[in-house]
């Protein structure tokens, strides 16, 4: 303990780096869970993988399916529930209603905010209210709210009969939702690493039942894979943050351990028992690890709470998992550092390990460059690049800089000293500089990726989401009446079904493909006999413009169309083809979506009118949908910025602990410089210059990696995970902001030892 106090600064650095590592992990975890949750109105939907639309709304189809399932026809299905969706008016507001037969699926594990117990309590005339407008005990249209969860969405979840009553549709259902047997396993994975499944491209395998069209839930809930994508990208950043913080915590720890080792040897020579020494050592390490990670978790929670990103108080489980993860990582790093620092190292073995690592990295990079390696390959490329940065790029750059530095001749010896000192520091800080550069690169890469994604997404929204109303679940909605309303300028119906291509099922949409409609997808003229497909379908089936598609439609019909356009869609990772409604017979198709362009200024009136005419239609305003989609991005921005900041802080603590390790030698040097007659002002200026040069070099080495990470994220990770590409926008400000921040922090980290010695000369 006395020793801890004596070296309080070094110990502080170890604790701080562990704390920051823990903080990084906790923040990333909670943030990504929160992102997913924010994007989805309720987790109920995500616990089912298939949707069977019931076009006739008859409950008997559900019983039919259930009978088939009981007799073993659907062996991969664990549970199924009939559901009814619609909009009702409550206290002057339009609220979405989701009716679900809770007795049909008692094994349901919904998300954290809504457990199966909650839904289990639903009885006749009770509701669970999602959204901030209602509290427990309120009576809405004759039903009592028994639970409420705050959310941006307004949604009532009710027992099926209650919902039927609320919507005035007795005996009707809209769909049957089904859950796959492994869903439980998957939800566990999602809890540990949010977005991983989406990132790994997990898609429920197609399911076929005679007489029904079974669709994947993700094509009904496109935001799911979208939020998955963002969570996955965040997690990637998190993984890199873990890498960097582990690295730095390791550096700080092993510095400490090496110092302690000397002491151990000395005490050992005095006859103190080695095992006893090692024991105290371990206890001390665990103590530091525990303090560090607890501190980190605390800071993370305070940080998230302070930025008002997350209401941590109602996500206890999430915080718990995040804490577990971070404690595991910090203690693991610490033990690893102790192990490495106490075991004797052999130079030859080390060299061959180095060569082997480089060879493996290069091999993996090469493998990952081929698209067949899939998402794992892209992942490997990212990590491989970071490892190569440590093994090759930084050492090579350090070598180059040293050579240049030695070749430079400055007439003023004082400046020469500054230059050489900076280079020397750069050389001896190879490890922290590597970690620093990875952290900065990660910050740059992720910011660039998210900015580019947002630019692309906004461009897409600009053409795709025209002003107007969007009506979902519209099978009941009478378009012939609505098109007569005077507030309606333009009304469009969208039909969907699942067709078959040679390689598998395909989601089909049919609508009037006039020039107005095709322009939403970036095409310039009307389409009659052709089809527009999304990039996902093009990738999955290896299709290009001009290829002919032979689609098998319901009711044994055939459709042959030529691909005339491939469009980007960021909603879902499902393949989709759009055909002209004139080319098909709509029997066997569901009209699930209607869009209405109201005469300007009459949106609200129309919205009311639609809701009162058709109780099962879900109406939303496109401008609201646009705002909601972009809000997600802005939230993500705040998070990515926050995480990037954490990464930078971690990296700086790494530099600081390295600088403190050099403190002894530096102190002597300062003393010498003073005696030679170098004044205080010159010392301050030259230390500033030296730190500045060091920071500059450290940032320079981070830039290429940062841009490469952004490139890999845009061109490899996202296309392979979600089949969409993101055009990389090299926004200089986005690159500069983290770089400048890092530069300032690096300078500060290098200045601190100088300031310390000024205080205690």
């Amino acid at each position, binding site marked *: 303990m006395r020793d801890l106090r004596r070296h309080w600064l070094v110990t502080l650095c170890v604790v701080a780096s562990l704390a920051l590592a823990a903080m990084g992990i906790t923040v990333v975890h909670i943030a990504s869970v929160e992102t997913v949750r924010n994007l989805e109105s309720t987790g109920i939907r995500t616990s089912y993988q298939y949707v069977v639309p019931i076009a006739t709304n008859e409950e008997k189809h559900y019983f039919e399916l259930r009978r088939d399932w009981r007799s073993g026809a659907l062996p991969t299905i664990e549970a199924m529930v009939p559901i009814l969706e619609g909009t009702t008016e409550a206290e002057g507001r339009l609220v979405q209603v989701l009716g679900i037969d809770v007795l049909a699926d008692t094994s349901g594990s919904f998300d954290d905010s809504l457990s199966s117990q909650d839904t289990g309590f639903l009885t006749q005339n009770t509701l669970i209210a999602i959204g901030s407008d209602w509290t427990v005990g309120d009576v809405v249209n004759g039903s009592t709210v028994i639970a409420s969860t705050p959310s941006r969405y307004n949604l009532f979840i009710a027992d099926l009969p209650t919902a039927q009553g609320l919507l005035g549709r007795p005996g009707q259902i809209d769909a049957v939702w089904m859950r796959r047997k492994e869903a439980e396993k998957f939800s566990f994975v999602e809890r540990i690493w949010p977005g991983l499944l989406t990132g790994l491209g997990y898609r429920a395998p197609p399911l076929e039942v005679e007489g029904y069209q079974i669709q994947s839930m993700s094509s009904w809930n496109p935001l799911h894979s979208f939020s998955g994508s963002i969570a996955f990208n965040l997690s990637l950043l998190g993984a890199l943050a873990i890498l960097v913080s582990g690295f730095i915590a390791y550096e700080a720890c092993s510095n400490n351990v090496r110092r302690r080792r000397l002491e151990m040897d000395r005490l050992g020579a005095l006859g103190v028992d080695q095992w006893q020494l090692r024991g105290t050592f371990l206890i001390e390490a665990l103590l530091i690890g525990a303090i560090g990670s607890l501190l980190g978790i605390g800071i993370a929670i305070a940080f998230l709470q302070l930025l008002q990103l997350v209401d941590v108080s109602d996500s206890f489980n999430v915080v718990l998992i995040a804490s577990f993860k971070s404690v595991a990582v910090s203690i693991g790093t610490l033990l690893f550092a102790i192990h490495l620092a106490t075991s004797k190292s052999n130079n030859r073995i080390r060299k061959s390990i180095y060569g082997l690592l480089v060879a493996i990295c290069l091999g993996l990079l090469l493998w990952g460059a081929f698209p067949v390696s899939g998402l794992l390959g892209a992942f490997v490329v990212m990590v491989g690049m970071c490892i190569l940065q440590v093994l090759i790029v930084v050492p090579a750059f350090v070598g180059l800089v040293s050579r240049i530095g030695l070749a430079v001749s400055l007439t003023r010896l004082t400046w020469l000293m500054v230059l050489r000192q900076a280079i020397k520091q750069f050389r001896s800080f190879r490890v922290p500089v590597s970690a620093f550069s990875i952290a900065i690169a990660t910050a740059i890469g992720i910011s660039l990726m998210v900015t580019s994604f947002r630019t692309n997404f906004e461009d897409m929204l600009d053409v795709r989401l025209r002003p107007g109303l969007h009506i979902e679940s519209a099978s009941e909605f009478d378009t012939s009446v609505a098109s007569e309303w005077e507030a309606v300028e333009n009304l469009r119906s969208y039909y969907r079904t699942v067709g078959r291509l040679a390689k598998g099922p395909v989601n089909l949409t049919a609508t009037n493909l006039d020039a107005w409609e095709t322009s939403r997808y970036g095409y310039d003229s009307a389409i009659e006999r052709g089809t527009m497909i999304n990039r996902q379908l093009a990738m999955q089936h290896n299709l290009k413009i001009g290829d002919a598609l032979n689609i098998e439609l319901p009711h044994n019909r055939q459709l042959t169309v030529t691909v005339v356009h491939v469009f980007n869609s960021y909603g879902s990772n499902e393949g989709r083809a759009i055909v002209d409604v004139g080319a098909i017979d709509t029997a066997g198709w569901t009209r699930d979506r209607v869009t209405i362009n109201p005469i300007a200024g009459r949106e609200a009136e129309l919205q009311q009118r639609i809701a009162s005419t058709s109780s099962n239609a879900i109406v939303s305003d496109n401008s609201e949908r646009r705002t909601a989609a972009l809000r997600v991005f802005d939230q993500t921005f705040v998070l990515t910025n926050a995480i990037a900041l954490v990464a930078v802080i971690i990296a700086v603590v790494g530099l600081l602990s390295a600088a403190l390790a050099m403190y002894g030698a530096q102190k002597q040097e300062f003393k*010498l410089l*003073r005696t030679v*007659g170098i004044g205080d002002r010159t010392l301050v200026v030259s230390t500033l210059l030296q730190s500045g040069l060091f920071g500059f070099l450290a940032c320079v080495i981070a830039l290429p990696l940062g841009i490469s990470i952004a490139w890999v994220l845009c061109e490899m990770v996202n296309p392979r995970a979600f089949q969409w590409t993101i055009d990389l926008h090299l926004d200089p400000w986005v690159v500069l902001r983290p770089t400048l921040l890092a530069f300032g922090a690096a300078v500060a980290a290098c200045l601190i030892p100088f300031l310390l010695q000024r205080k205690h000369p």
Partner: protein
Amino acid sequence: MAIQLDNVGKRFTDGNSDRWVLENLSFSIAEAESVAVIGPSGCGKTTLLNLLSGQLAIDAGTVQVCFPGKAAFRLNEVNAKDLLHYRRSDIGFVYQFFNLIPTLTLKENVLLPVELTKRKHLREQALSRIATLGLNDRIDAFPEELSGGEQQRAAIARALAHEPHIIFADEPTGNLDADNSKIVADLLWQEVTKSNATLVVATHSDAILRRANRVIDL
């Protein structure tokens, strides 16, 4: 008279208690004299040298410094700027070890005081002293590439490069073996005598003691 001490004292604070390391020290050192300061380890030799070279504040008494062609002044009264000038121009220093700036070559280390004092005319002389000290083939080496003896010889060249009035040497041979000690002591004396400087050297070494004009036992 180069330096005159009157009742000089230095106090260090250990925790809460003050301790006088040097007390009532009075003596003077003449121009071009060589003085050896001896005494058991911990008696305050380094402290004394640091006081006289203006690196430590003087807690009691006065230290008067007087050089030819320059007004006499008291070290305990000068301002920071003059003190810096004193350290830079009037004195040279040789420590027991760690004398050279690691990022500069031997030659650059030696030339640094010449540059700092802007005495360009001393450049050639400084370079030729490197040769005299037998370091000509090590001129572009960095300190870490030099042996202990070479480092001390380079330190002597550096301490004398700007023709200071006084050289302070704190156990300059303390880190060397007997042979090297003798070589370094010889060269130190040879060069100091040649440049007519005053020498104050703290030492345990007989080789140095024997050559000193005077010995001060603390």
